[in-house]
């Protein structure tokens, strides 16, 4: 446990020396990076110890605050969430040295590093807390540091707005969590977390706890329709902070849901069904909204919504399995969810970091201003391609492995006889649709950004990212490839976590049979990778010295880069098909007459919930209350006297009744 606490403190205080360093100059940025690395290394050591011995690390210290001890507990379930945290935090810190150097950002560099360390420590504390109060404390630590990360560039109104929406959203969620933990304390009799399966609560109370958890944790995770804060926040934060927010922080919502559901001995079927339905909704709507975006980071943020949807639907499958006592479904659903948590942490941070490298080189987030960057940024382009293949769930990378587990669960659910978790089979076609749309979206992003010809002056003069930015991305891609090519190595971790969650050591047995073919998948992935590498090498060699010509343009002699398919035109067909759920706005674009004048076209897809629902609703409410206030607080003393008199009468009447 010593290593764990040391890691916690090192991470938390990594930004503090910077506060005492001069504003001009280095700002102790290298020291901060070193501290984050040391902290991550200590934490990894502690997690390694947990996994090796299969025994949770426990720390119990007396605490002056009423309601129990300062209890920390690191078990296999927390380890699944901790490992990506350490990797992403360490890579982000190194990346930040080149991406957000103190010299270029004297105003906010030190603050960014302070909160980068604090949020990492906050997440670490949260994942290890075994006491409700401590959990809430860490939760708030994390939430507030997140706010300061999002508003790093507070001079921009976009960042301020995103920050405030985030603050409102996260505190609404915290409110639900207060209620949740109060109910939990009543049920369990203590503020300490109950053990797995120890809570024999049924009926309305259990339902209330679950729904509060779904709201509070779902808001943090970004489940549709609670994802309102997510796209803006991830777009506004600096790229390595977005990587941490999207890769790690939103997973704490998933962790909360997983931990919470593990307490219950009995789980009604509607819990799993609800989560499954919400997951499918988030997955499809998230990827559809992503397709319609042309801001690189907003697009990636919507993909986080999609992936959270996939995780939620697999968690829903696991819950359905618990309700009906189908062990294989529990094991596959939970293992798929946890593996996808790790995978999404890896490839999404990789994508955010490489998106940062592109933004760093071109100075814009607009997809339609990119083009042909693979020539000026060969490393970044190849790394982004790896991330894109991984997030589309394609072999030979890691996204495929977790989706494979989910499919096995869904197909298995279809094969069970009699009344049972049949609903879980819906996950298979839903995943197929989500996967197809994600593929379309990432072909679009990769193609429009890195392939073709440059569409703007900035893209013409782009430069490759420095080594300090490339190294963390390479590490993340290697981690993605490792899980994709050697998935067997993760089986013990998943087995431990599944056994812990379902409170039955034999539950992991449901996992060993379905996971046996992972060796085959690994072998085929290697063959695929080698065959492709060999084929491309051979074809390139054969084509050496080939004649070079212009791209075929149907005989048109003066092609220009502006004639290429843009991000909007690529997605247009699908966006029109999905218009019932997207409500995109389109302006102009019609050509009139035989010799049309130069025209304009613009398309824009606002967020369905925030921009179409909540914003108008709250604006309406604000207008209503302004009117009411003007009516009531009208400045006439006679009216005020009337209010006093009326209140007195009402109080007297009430006093008479009771």
């Amino acid at each position, binding site marked *: 446990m010593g290593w764990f606490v040391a890691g916690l403190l090192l991470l938390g205080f990594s930004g503090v020396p910077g506060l005492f360093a001069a504003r001009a100059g280095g700002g102790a940025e290298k020291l901060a990076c070193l501290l984050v690395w040391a902290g991550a290394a200590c934490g990894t050591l502690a997690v390694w110890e947990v996994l090796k011995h299969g025994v949770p690390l426990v720390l119990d210290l007396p605490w002056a605050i009423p309601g129990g001890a300062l209890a920390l507990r690191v078990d296999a379930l927390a380890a699944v969430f901790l490992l990506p945290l350490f990797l992403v935090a360490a890579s982000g810190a190194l990346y930040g040295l080149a991406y957000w150097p103190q010299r270029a950002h004297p105003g906010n560099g030190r603050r960014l590093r302070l909160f980068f360390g604090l949020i990492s420590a906050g997440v670490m504390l949260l994942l290890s807390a075994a006491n409700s109060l401590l959990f809430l404390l860490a939760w708030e630590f994390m939430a507030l540091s997140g706010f300061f990360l999002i508003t790093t560039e507070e001079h921009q109104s976009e960042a301020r707005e995103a920050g405030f929406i985030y603050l409102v959203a996260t505190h609404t969620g915290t409110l639900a969590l207060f209620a949740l933990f109060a109910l939990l304390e009543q049920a369990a009799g203590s503020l300490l977390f109950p053990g797995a399966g120890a809570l024999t609560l049924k009926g309305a109370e259990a339902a209330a706890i679950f729904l509060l958890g779904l709201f509070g944790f779902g808001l943090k995770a970004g489940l549709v329709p609670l994802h309102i804060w997510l796209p803006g926040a991830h777009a506004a934060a600096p790229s390595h902070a977005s990587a941490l927010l999207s890769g790690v922080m939103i997973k704490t919502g998933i962790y909360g849901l997983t931990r919470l559901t593990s307490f219950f001995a009995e789980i009604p079927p509607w819990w799993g069904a609800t989560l499954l339905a919400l997951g499918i909704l988030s997955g499809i709507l998230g990827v559809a909204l992503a397709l319609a975006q042309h801001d690189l980071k907003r697009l990636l943020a919507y993909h986080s919504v999609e992936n959270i949807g996939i995780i939620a639907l697999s968690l829903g499958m696991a819950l359905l399995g618990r309700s009906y006592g189908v062990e294989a479904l529990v094991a596959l659903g939970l293992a798929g969810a946890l593996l996808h948590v790790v995978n999404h942490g890896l490839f999404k941070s990789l994508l955010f970091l490489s998106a940062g490298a592109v933004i760093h080189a071109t100075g814009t987030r607009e997809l339609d201003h990119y083009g042909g960057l693979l020539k000026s940024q060969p490393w970044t382009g190849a790394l982004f391609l790896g991330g894109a293949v991984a997030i589309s769930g394609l072999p030979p990378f890691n996204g495929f492995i977790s989706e494979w587990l989910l499919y096995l669960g869904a*197909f298995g659910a279809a094969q069970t006889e009699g009344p049972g978790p049949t609903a879980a089979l819906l996950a*298979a076609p839903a995943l197929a649709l989500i996967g197809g749309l994600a593929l379309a979206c990432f072909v679009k992003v990769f193609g429009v950004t890195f392939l073709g010809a440059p569409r703007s002056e900035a893209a013409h003069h782009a430069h490759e990212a420095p080594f300090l930015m490339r190294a963390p991305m390479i590490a993340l891609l290697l981690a993605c490839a490792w899980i994709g090519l050697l998935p067997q190595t993760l089986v013990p971790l998943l087995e431990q976590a599944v056994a812990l969650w379902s409170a039955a050591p034999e539950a992991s047995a449901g996992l060993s049979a379905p996971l046996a*073919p992972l060796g085959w998948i690994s072998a085929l992935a290697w063959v695929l990778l080698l065959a492709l590498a060999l084929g491309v090498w051979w074809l*390139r060699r054969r084509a050496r010295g080939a004649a070079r010509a*212009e791209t075929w*343009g149907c005989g048109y002699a003066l092609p220009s880069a502006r004639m290429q*398919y843009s991000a909007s035109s690529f997605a247009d*067909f*699908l966006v029109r098909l999905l218009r019932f759920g997207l409500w995109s706005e389109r302006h102009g674009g019609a050509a009139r007459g035989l010799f049309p004048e130069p025209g304009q076209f613009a398309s824009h897809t606002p967020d369905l919930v925030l921009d179409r629902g909540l914003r108008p609703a709250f604006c309406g409410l604000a207008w209503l209350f302004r009117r009411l206030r003007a009516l009531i607080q009208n400045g006439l003393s006679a009216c005020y006297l009337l209010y006093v008199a009326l209140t007195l009468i009402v109080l007297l009447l009430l006093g008479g009744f009771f």
Partner: protein
Amino acid sequence: MIAHLLLHLLVLLLFAPLLPGVIARTKARFAGRQGPPLLQPYYDLLRLWRKGFVLSRTTTWVFSAGPVVGLVVPLLAALLLPFGALSAPLSFEGDLILFVYLFALARFFTAAAALDTGSSFEGMGAAREVTFSCLAEPTLMFALLVLAKLSGGLSLQTLFGAHLPAAWGSGAGPALGLILVCLFVVLLVENSRIPFDDPNTHLELTMIHEVMVLDHSGPAFGMILYGAALKLMVLGSLLVRLALPWNSGFWLFDLLIYLGGLLLLAVLIGVVESVMARLRLVRVPQVLIGTSLVSVFALVLVLR
């Protein structure tokens, strides 16, 4: 095992280019023409193999990755698939998912290679290809769910195993019939045949798959044509096994049934291409969503 694997691949590699030849001959006969020789695709491949390259100036290594993935993926996927009653060289629980996702990988790189040229026509083709495929994907999953439910296994070997003749005779017959229709539609979409795409069109604006490979030349183009033929045979094998599910017990008869079935399928595709016009692009998604619904009915029939 190694011999089995090599034989499996040999059948695929040698037989696949015949199918486009049969389709072309059928179409020619319908139009009252003589048509090219049946072996024309082989000659084409040989000729392309010997040719040189012309590359667009905008392209990068991604452009050459497209043809390579398009060729490697059907070969790998075929290893998981039984050819008629002949068993698959590799088989494990859950290989059907890998089968589906391998083709998705091929789609990713074909579309990326198309965008690499920077041509608006190829962008158009890539956009259409990914759009139609993601609509066809749920149909394929529903079909596989039905087959998995009937067989009780999760590998292609069990899904297309010896239980199929009995399943046709049992109450699941109608569901299998519906699935057969759905898979045929998926086959036509995935292999860019009429009514979804016309492989013989000469207008770039209306093409889907052809326009994506406009800029490829020489051996790279040969790899694409070969890959397309392999894909047709691999996806066609699913249909053939479903429609002709008999096991004779002797490998030669099994092989003949299988190859004969493939030839019949090629003739059928040729007939469809001759008697139908291609659909308007906006109609294609409607057809695909319709097929998804049909496959849902099939699933309901099996689950009830």
